[in-house]
């Protein structure tokens, strides 16, 4: 099917996955409604219902591969980058919904609204990956963010959750302000909010350079907040620690992925000609994020907080791809985001099992004896941890190699070595959980039955570990797919080598 966007009805086709998912979010919301004195709907049932919607949206997303757009001025694209990132968001949402019952049911929360918010946030992400218009991008970002703020504060009875929600809301709005200001300045400098048009104007050397650079810098700051790059990461640990665990998993995985996708789209489509100017920003952001996040994670004894810093650290690795800015790096970024989403949600899934009622078992000591009591869950957790550490045999390794190849291709030697050295640092804190799990005896009175793992969570963990191992051994197909999806986004090698001082 070929679309030229001569009539606005074409947008209905090109936005079909988003439309399906939005409608389904309403279905889930209504299905979860009961009168106050009726018993609430079983969260697992609502979870499976939400999954049906995600599957439908995924099916439509697959169908979009057969659709071509001939109009570059359209606000929504149908390129591989968008479709691939849609897979990431849908996968992240599906896994989150699968692990959520363990928390939602235990805390007696309203499952319907929780899932609806996740689905709506996913719709926002899909818009972020698909749009080429800065205004639409902002709206999509807010759609996603507001759902995420509510998810963070969702456990009203928990003070940590409320505190996290408020912090996230204030700092998130603050960063959105930066972003909006940046958009305004870029519009002022180039007279357009359409990415390819901005790109063409910049390339031609037209527009007000000072204004443009200021706008670009503000955009970079806004996105750096969203992807939690050091030094704009301060909100992350508190928010991640306070939020309900499934919401944390969702934020650490899918929300971050969406922010990265938009970050890449804006800088690669609008400002490739300014690579010389923004390359040092990315370089320093990546270096700071990798080093500081990994070092701080070392000293965390709370596993949830450790995973929060680990997610910041992974953001650092991904920023290396942005600094490298070639097609290999962009493909690596896509592949990494997918793998990262799976392993992060998986790790949070096991964390929820251990965390127990009221999330009172989050310390690393609480993992003592877990391996002896629940060996299968512990094996799955070990796989996720090894993958997060980037160990050979897991998908995390292939993803890291992909990023490294991109960096090496752009001759970013210092960043490559930093990436590798900080990876060694990260081994320590990931392995520490493994050693408590396997090498420490369980405390007195701890029984295996206190680790409650509902069926959907087990499904998510097994599926996640399966994906991690499969991609760790046979990554070929997906690597090619990621490479094809990044088509046209990277700068040509000689261009940036020439541009860079």
């Amino acid at each position: 099917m070929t679309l030229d966007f001569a009539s606005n009805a074409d947008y209905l086709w090109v936005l079909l996955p988003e439309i399906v998912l939005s409608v389904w979010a309403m279905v889930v919301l209504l299905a979860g409604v009961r009168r106050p004195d009726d018993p609430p709907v079983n969260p697992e049932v609502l979870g499976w219902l939400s999954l049906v919607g995600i599957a439908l949206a995924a099916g439509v997303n697959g169908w979009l591969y057969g659709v071509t757009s001939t109009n570059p001025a359209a606000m929504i694209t149908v390129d591989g980058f968008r479709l691939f990132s849609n897979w990431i968001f849908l996968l992240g949402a599906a896994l989150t919904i699968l692990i959520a019952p363990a928390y939602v049911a235990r805390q007696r929360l309203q499952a319907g609204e929780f899932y609806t918010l996740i689905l709506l946030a996913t719709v926002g992400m899909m818009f972020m990956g698909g749009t080429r218009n800065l205004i639409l991008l902002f709206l999509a970002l807010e759609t996603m963010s507001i759902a995420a703020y509510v998810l963070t504060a969702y456990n009203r009875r928990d003070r940590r959750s409320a505190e996290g929600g408020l912090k996230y809301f204030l700092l998130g709005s603050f960063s959105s302000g930066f972003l909006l200001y940046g958009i305004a300045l870029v519009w002022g400098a180039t007279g357009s909010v359409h990415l390819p048009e901005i790109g063409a104007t910049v390339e031609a050397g037209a527009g007000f350079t000072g204004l443009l650079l200021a706008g670009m810098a503000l955009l970079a700051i806004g996105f750096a907040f969203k992807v939690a790059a050091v030094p704009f990461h301060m909100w992350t640990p508190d928010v991640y620690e306070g939020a309900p665990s499934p919401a944390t998993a969702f934020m650490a995985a899918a929300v971050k992925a969406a922010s990265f996708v938009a970050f890449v789209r804006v800088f690669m489509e609008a400002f490739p000609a300014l690579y010389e100017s923004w390359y040092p920003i990315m370089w320093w952001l990546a270096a700071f994020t990798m080093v500081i996040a990994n070092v701080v994670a070392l000293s965390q004894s709370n596993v949830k907080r450790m995973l929060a810093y680990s997610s910041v650290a992974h953001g650092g690795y991904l920023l290396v791809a942005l600094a490298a800015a070639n097609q290999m790096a962009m493909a690596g970024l896509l592949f990494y985001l997918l793998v990262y989403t799976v392993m992060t949600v998986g790790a949070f899934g096991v964390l929820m099992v251990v965390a127990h009622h009221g999330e009172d078992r989050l310390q690393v000591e609480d993992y003592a004896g877990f391996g002896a009591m629940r060996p299968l869950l512990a094996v799955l957790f070990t796989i996720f941890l090894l993958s997060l550490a980037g160990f050979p045999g897991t998908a995390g390794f292939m993803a890291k190699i992909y990023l490294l190849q991109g960096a090496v291709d752009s001759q970013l030697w210092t960043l490559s070595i930093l990436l590798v050295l900080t990876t060694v640092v990260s081994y320590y804190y990931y392995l520490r959980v493994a050693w408590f799990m396997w090498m420490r005896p369980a405390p007195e009175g701890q029984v295996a039955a206190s680790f409650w793992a509902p069926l959907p969570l087990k499904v998510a963990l097994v599926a996640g570990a399966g994906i991690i191992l499969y991609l760790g051994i046979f990554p070929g197909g997906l690597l090619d797919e990621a490479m094809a999806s990044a088509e046209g986004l990277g700068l040509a090698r000689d261009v940036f080598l020439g541009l860079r001082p």
Partner: protein
Amino acid sequence: MSGLLQASAYESWILHALIWLPLLGILGVLASSEERAKHFAFAWTSGLFVLSLGLLWAFDPAGPLFQFTSDAPWIELWGVGYSLGIDGISLFMILLTTFIMPVAILGAYRYIGEKRRAFYALMLLLQTGIVGVFASMDLFLFYIFFELTLVPMYFIVGVWGGERRVYAAVKFFLYTALGSLLMLVGILYLYIQAQAGGAPPSFHYLELLGTPLTLGEQLWLFAAFALAFAIKVPLFPFHTWLPDAHVEAPTPGSVVLAAVLLKLGAYGFIRFVLPFFPDAATHPTVVMVMLVLGVVGIIYAAWVAAVQPDAKKLVAYTSVAHMGFVVLGIFALTLNGLQGGLLVMISHGISTGALFLLLGMLYERRHTRLIEDFGGLARVAPLLATAFVITALATIGVPGTSGFVGEFLALLGTWERHPIIALVGTTGVIFAAYYMLPMVQKILFNELDREENRTMPDLSGREIAVLAPLVALMVLLGVFPTPVLDRMEPGARAVVEYVEETTRDGSLLEAARLDRVDTQSRFVHDSGRHELLISPDPTWSLSDRSGAFRIPDDHILRDEG
């Protein structure tokens, strides 16, 4: 024998089987009961050893350099292949691995008391990793197997180890991972450089070989690779993880660690560092640094070993000393030296493995490893004492044992180029007697002054079965090393000659630029790939694939800048 091997197409499946069958065995271990797991693991690894014995017959010393080769695409986007192949060097490393594994498992029958299934599953995983390292012809594959050995060893030390097991396990893991990750960057650099001339991406060993590199690049890459392997060897001063890991590891863990895992490092030097970076490896300063570190390792470790109250720690330090001889042999860059180093690797694997097993047996009986807790054991346990003495003599390197041949050749090879270093190194042999003999004296002879030791049982049938093959090999290799040396020679000669020729007149880069030598075919001059070179079908010709040598001038300029 060879008829049988031929009929079963042994060549085509043996390496795959040796790598993947241990993984399959994991399923068997997990399916059997806690009690039976050890029997299954022992039977499985023994079967693999018998299978691998066929390599001795099937490997043709007069044939191509790399044999049993196979190539299959794996990750095509990056040019990663599932490529296997072995030369005479890896042949014996693989045999050593398949031999030590059942021995270590049988020796651990009583030592491993809990979580047995998990333990034997990890041992099998370890075997997959180690054999994979020695059989890989693709650097990416090699790296994966190289790292894969860390995880099982981490858990073996950390779960079944002694008092300070977690500390030892983490130190071992972080130390070795640091080195290998830096090597990964080096591998990627090499990989990118090899594509500079427009060659398709490939991680294949022979494709990366002869990649033109300036001396500066070679020195950096040498550092990255050498650090990884020096930590693994371990070369002084990167050895501090070893005593901890050895002492804390359970007996079978120590055995495998000493016998095979340390060899990964030395193997890496021979297989990758020397041929990839010949100019750096022959650079006088580099050679001197490596030799001096080797010699310092020999002497320092001997002195430290001599004062250890803990017998296991003493043996751990002897490993450092022995691996010092290996490094001497390698960086002497002579055929004798290299062959000697390789032989030391094998004999150290056997004798140190046996020492750890013996100490494990003593520990099972007395639950102590302190030398002072024993004394006069020769009177109550004569069989044990006999095995102990022979092993100790082999460790020292007394003529007639395996230790002697290797150390002699390594020192002889060093003497040809660096007489003073060889002279200093030779004192290490004396120091070996200085630390080994007092320990033997204190444990086996002296007064039988402890009540607990009077009732100590001698070797059981199982323990005899564990030690007998080891002791037999020590003597056999000591008096008749020719079969081993013959098969190793082509591999060792290829490395030494290749390094010599590529560096004789000018650097590797120079040689490649002037198209004076086709470096790859030099290396495999007598191999199967050489026949491909002269085959009439141009699509298969190696020289055609080695486009890396047609370096555009701008590339060279950029390197200088």
